[in-house]
């Protein structure tokens, strides 16, 4: 069972996503419980996998019984297991949240297909994580991306245009990635990651390998919206349905970061990545620029979702910066930040969705007295915002702690300064909103009665509360998460 869990975790959502259409056409209301149940089973399987990895070591499952490198291998170590838990948990929580939000924002006949594509996206993301094969990874990356385009496109009026942008950039990224895979296949004749790790060191002098590496890095950088290749992200994530924004913001860039880490430190040796080309040096500076640029743009926005999207651009910078400094603390910080940022993004986009649900807009200048209408939601918003700023004891602080340590250990003082500066700007961005919500007197002078308490439905409120409480819980258990999973994922030689 434990072995099969690693393939079931993609087989189940894939199967259900197809079944969803006939079932939904018979009885539309069945789609929602089916989706929730599917993602719940993914959560269960991911825990089984993580438990297996922690207790008995890495999992290698040969699909169809064919031995790698000829057959397809599902290879899971601590890093995959960690990512699997994050992604499946987020997809479960988002699927609970989806129902009311989607019914409010989408046309009724699209709801069945929403669930179908949503599960397809989950499949793609989990597939990227479990596979031990570079080409398979590309296939799943495309499944996830195509599903992502579709989900974004069903959003607001401007969504199709944003999606068009997204498709073009995303396809370029995928092409670059595929070119990298092709080049490696030319020189090694294999696509299996473990096999490549074994064969590549002898070929590090080859120009083809260097070119492949460059293609990989740029391709993935587009997929994770690393500044200045981020241009597709703010539009796409602003105009997508709230549920979709929450899910893609929390998962797509994180899985992309996972791919980047895999390629840089598993397919290629850390030694090569850090020394052969000035890649990490460049990535570090680009990431710093992303941190600053994302925050400045976030400060300039009046649309809540757009602001969050720009903050996401900055957060991607954090993750890449941590990886680029090339030491244990920085890497730990990056990997921990993948978890934290994914949870923070879900919480914040959930709140944005809740505001959309009740108020029908998301202009941050027009939020006054919301805390009286939606006290629980706004309380959760504050927790998530504080975590985003990085105030202890929320989760956000601990990953920043490791990131900054990594930068200090690497003597990259500029990165330290940029990290702190961007924290300050994030603080400014969020306090602006908090002040508007809590302290700005209402502009409508016509009604002076107290706003009535009016929270979003339970199926939306519960996920919001769970996610923001988990931000506190994760904060306190950061040490344990690092001890049991992340420290084993740190590449050798760090």
């Amino acid at each position: 069972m434990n072995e099969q869990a690693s393939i079931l975790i993609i087989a189940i959502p894939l199967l259900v996503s197809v079944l969803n259409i006939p079932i939904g056409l018979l009885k539309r209301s069945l789609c929602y419980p089916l989706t929730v149940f599917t993602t719940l089973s993914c959560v269960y399987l991911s825990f089984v996998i993580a438990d297996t990895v922690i207790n008995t070591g890495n999992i290698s499952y040969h699909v169809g019984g064919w031995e790698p490198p000829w057959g397809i291998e599902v290879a899971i170590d601590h890093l995959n297991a960690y990512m699997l838990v994050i992604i499946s948990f987020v997809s479960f929580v988002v699927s609970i949240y989806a129902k009311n939000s989607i019914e409010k924002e989408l046309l009724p006949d699209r709801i069945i297909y929403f669930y179908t594509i949503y599960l397809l996206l989950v499949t793609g993301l989990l597939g990227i994580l479990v596979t031990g094969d570079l080409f398979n990874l590309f296939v799943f990356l495309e499944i996830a991306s195509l599903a992502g385009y579709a989900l974004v496109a069903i959003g607001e009026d401007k969504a199709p245009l944003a999606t068009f942008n997204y498709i073009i950039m995303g396809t370029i990224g995928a092409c670059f990635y595929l070119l990298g895979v092709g080049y490696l296949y030319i020189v090694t004749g294999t696509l299996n990651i473990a096999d490549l790790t074994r064969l590549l060191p002898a070929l590090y002098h080859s120009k083809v390998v260097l070119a492949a590496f460059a293609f990989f890095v740029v391709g993935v950088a587009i997929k994770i919206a690393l500044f200045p290749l981020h241009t597709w992200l703010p539009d796409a994530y602003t105009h997508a349905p709230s549920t979709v924004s929450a899910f893609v913001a929390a998962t797509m860039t994180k899985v992309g970061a996972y791919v980047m880490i895999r390629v840089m430190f598993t397919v290629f040796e850390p030694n090569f990545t850090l020394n052969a080309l000035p890649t990490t040096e460049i990535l570090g500076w680009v990431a710093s620029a992303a941190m600053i640029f994302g925050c400045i743009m976030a400060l300039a926005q009046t649309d809540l979702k757009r602001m969050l999207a720009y903050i996401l651009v900055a957060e991607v910078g954090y993750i890449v910066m941590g990886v680029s400094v090339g030491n244990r603390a920085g890497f730990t910080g990056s990997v921990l930040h993948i978890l934290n940022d994914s949870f923070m993004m879900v919480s914040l986009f959930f709140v944005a969705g809740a505001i959309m649900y009740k108020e029908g807009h998301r202009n941050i200048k027009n939020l006054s007295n919301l805390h009286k209408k939606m006290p629980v939601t706004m309380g959760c918003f504050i927790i998530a915002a504080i975590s985003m700023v990085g105030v202890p004891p929320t989760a956000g602080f601990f990953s920043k702690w490791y990131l900054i340590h990594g930068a200090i250990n690497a003597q990259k003082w500029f990165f330290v300064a940029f990290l702190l500066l961007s924290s300050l700007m994030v603080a400014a961005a969020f306090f602006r909103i908090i002040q508007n919500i809590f302290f700005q007197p209402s502009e409508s002078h016509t009604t002076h009665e107290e706003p009535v308490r009016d929270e979003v439905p339970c199926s939306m409120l519960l996920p919001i509360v769970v996610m923001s409480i988990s931000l506190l819980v994760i904060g306190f258990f950061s040490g344990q998460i690092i001890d049991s999973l992340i420290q084993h994922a740190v590449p050798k030689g760090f």
Partner: protein
Amino acid sequence: MDTITSITPIIVISTSLVATFLIFFTGERSKNLRETWTILASLIKFAFVVSMLPAVLDGKIIEFTLISIAPGLTIAFRVDALGIFFAILASFLWIVTSFYSIGYMRSMNEHAQTRYFCCFAIALSATMGVAMSGNMFTTFLFYEIITLCTYPLVAHKQTPEALQGARRYITYLLGTSIAFQLTAVFLTYTAAGTLDFSNQGLLNNARESGVSDIFLTIIFVLYMAGIAKAAIMPFHSWLPAAMVAPTPVSALLHAVAVVKTGVFVVVKVVLHVFGVNLLTELGLGTALAYTASFTIIVASVIALKQDNLKRRLAYSTVSQLSYVILGVALLTPSAIAGSIMHIVLHAFGKITLFFTAGAIYVAAHKTEISQLDGIGKKMPFTMAAFTLGALSMIGIPPLGGFISKWYIGIGSLEANQLPIILVLVGSTILNACYFLPIVYAAFFKEAKHDDNHGHGHSHSHSKHGLEEAPAIMVIPLVLTAIGAVALFFLPSVFLDLARMVVISATGGN
């Protein structure tokens, strides 16, 4: 040194956190019940703090580790003489402030009182957390919590002016702490490999292990810039801006929680992070002492020009806080003792002054000093308390303020810093210049016949009779004024604690 493991620090902190929930859920439904929670929590908290006193006076240290999150990131408590000193002060003044707040908020019919009392309680929890923290991480954690939970207090009135003041408040405090203090914490961890406080200073051995002097100097400067709550110039301007808050909040900011936390953390950094020896070797104490002297004089001069009573008090606070920093920066036993004593003596004096400012506002709706002519006849108790508070600030015996100035003066002689004596004398004269005219005007000038506040009815009987604020406000301010006097005659417990701090910090001289 003996250490005891005890859960009391947790109880002390959680008392007012529990109260926060009770206050929140009681809400506006039953105001009396809500206020009961505040009072009960303040009394219980004080009792628990005092219960730790005998052990600390015996030379023991009470420790408790709450949770160890990751290496270097431990939430731990360590109650030593310095910690209990501050904890007693803050928890005692909370009791007084609670009564006063209730009186003020009800008289003024302020809105959002539940929020106000909730934030108040959290602020006190966090202050206790800073007082009893066992490492720099815990200190930073609670320092930030204080900033965040006092923001709603400063913004309480929600007018554009209040929001602007509050924005400046949070920008300065949160900005400097993230930009500078957090960096300093990181660098400290890098240099020393630990963040746990020690009596000799946790960086004491850093030099031997190859950390350069420049690196240590940078850390020190970052700390001083990062602790904006201590209002060292040029990081002081949030304090006058925060005067838009209701007066009990100003009292909380100035005497109980915020600025006292700032100077307490400065003392902590000087004594327990760097240590007297290291700072003497680096010569950083003297630099800090002269920065503080600059702040003392300049802030006093600015205070002279303020007509708004609360703003004058605010600048006075800026200058008085630097006394604490000056004392500890001189790094000699007497100066350190004087600096620690000044924390408590200034607290009693300044809380009295703010209480009187609030009482004047409630009873007579006056905020400017030029309006206070003859008010002493209408509010004799209030103005008598004001006089005592002012005299204590100036440092005239037999008032508490004299003790700390005396010790700091002796300390500057010990450190061979004669110019510091001039600073002390100069600032005493300036203090007298900005406080005594108020006292003179209140008691000896005739009241002007102005009706610019629309209180026509008060005009009719302004010639005779008392017009004091409610008793629940006057009694606390009289008590704190008496406290300011009593501390001159009976400073024993506080002085003992201060001596213990000095002995442990200077290695038993």
